[in-house]
């Protein structure tokens, strides 16, 4: 663990950037959105859960984002209102948009960045995130109050792996271009 290489300002900035991206991309119709920092994600994984993994790489560090979408009825209705079969594709694209927004904001501070395509993992994989030995990890619970009255829950995990000292200040929110971060095939 080289967590000491990431300054407190940088940790706070990464979290701020993540929260901005979540609010910008996962909130589809302006619903209230609560983002809560959690210490350890110990809740039970269900077979319907879809974990979308994405990576942003730079020369000195990499950033991994795991978005755990629950496969419950409320989530399916919210993210894929058309047909349940589209749920996986819908959350893949949303994950891509969310990570694209993070990438867009980070590229202002770190000029050489590249972003992976999204990949779907089994929910059980999240139990092994610590085995990757991240230098910094932050978990959040995102609660969206959907119009149907049912809360939609999304688990967000952010990991940072670095070989160089990182220090930056995210600053004020910037307007995100709608064209960036769309699903890109490798």
């Amino acid at each position, binding site marked *: 663990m080289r967590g000491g290489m990431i300054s407190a300002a940088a940790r706070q900035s990464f979290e701020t950037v993540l929260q901005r991206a979540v609010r910008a991309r996962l909130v589809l119709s302006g619903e209230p959105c609560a983002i809560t920092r959690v210490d350890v994600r110990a809740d039970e994984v269900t077979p319907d859960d879809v974990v979308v*993994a994405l990576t942003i*790489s730079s020369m000195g560090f990499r950033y991994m984002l795991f978005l755990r979408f629950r496969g419950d009825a409320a989530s399916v209705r919210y993210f894929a209102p058309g047909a349940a079969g589209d749920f996986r594709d819908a959350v893949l694209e949303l994950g891509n948009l969310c990570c694209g927004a993070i990438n867009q904001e980070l590229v202002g501070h770190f000029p050489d960045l*590249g972003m*992976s395509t999204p990949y779907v993992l089994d929910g*059980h*994989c999240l139990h*092994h*995130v610590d085995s990757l030995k991240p230098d910094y990890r932050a978990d959040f619970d995102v609660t969206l109050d959907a119009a149907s009255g049912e809360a939609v829950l999304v688990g967000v995990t952010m990991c940072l792996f670095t070989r160089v000292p990182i220090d930056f200040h995210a600053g004020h929110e910037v307007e995100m271009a709608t064209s960036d971060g769309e699903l890109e095939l490798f």
Partner: protein
Amino acid sequence: MSEYLIGALLGAGIVAMLAWFAWRREVQRTAARMQAMQDDALTPLQQANAELRAELDGCQQDMAALQVELQGLEAVLTEQSAVLASRDAELSGSRQQQADALQQARRIAEETARLRGLAHTFERWHEQMISLMARNQAMHEQNMELASIVRHVVIVSLNASIEAARAGAAGRGFGVVASEVRALAARSEALSKSYGDSLHLSDLTTTATFQDIQAGGKMVTASLASVAILAERFEEACQCAAA
């Protein structure tokens, strides 16, 4: 008679003397007039001569000044020639440098274009990753099949234990075997679960590794594209400078 002759001679002498005086006076007058005329003619000539001499002196001075100026100009010319020669040498060196720079710029552009081929390498890694993940998925399915078999074995061993108990003393040996089978099934179940965990860890590690390679590849590709643009501009600038 002689008196007359002497008188005549005397008269003639006097006339002759008068005539001589008159002639002489006329000669003197003529000479004076001629002298005056000569003087009149000589004065402008002398003035002109003096003017010409003065002019000549001025010209000689001008010539001397021009000579000095000419020498100065010759010195300047020599200096300028040396500077020009130096500039020529510099220009020649500069042209050579430009030609070298242009050649370097072309080489950089060619190298950058060649490195774009890295995209194929990244694509190959992508294919291998997909293949690895597909193999992981197949192992997940095999493990689930194994877990299903193990659960079935547990049920069968339980049934065997029940039947052994029903058989009483005769089924005691069979009961021991059934119990052993159940214990083996429990160990297999634990092993299958552990194997499943390992596969999930493997999925995560493989995905993290591949995504880092993929994202890093895109970073390299983007950086190369920037370098290619810079190399192109550099080449254009070299061409403009050489033209």
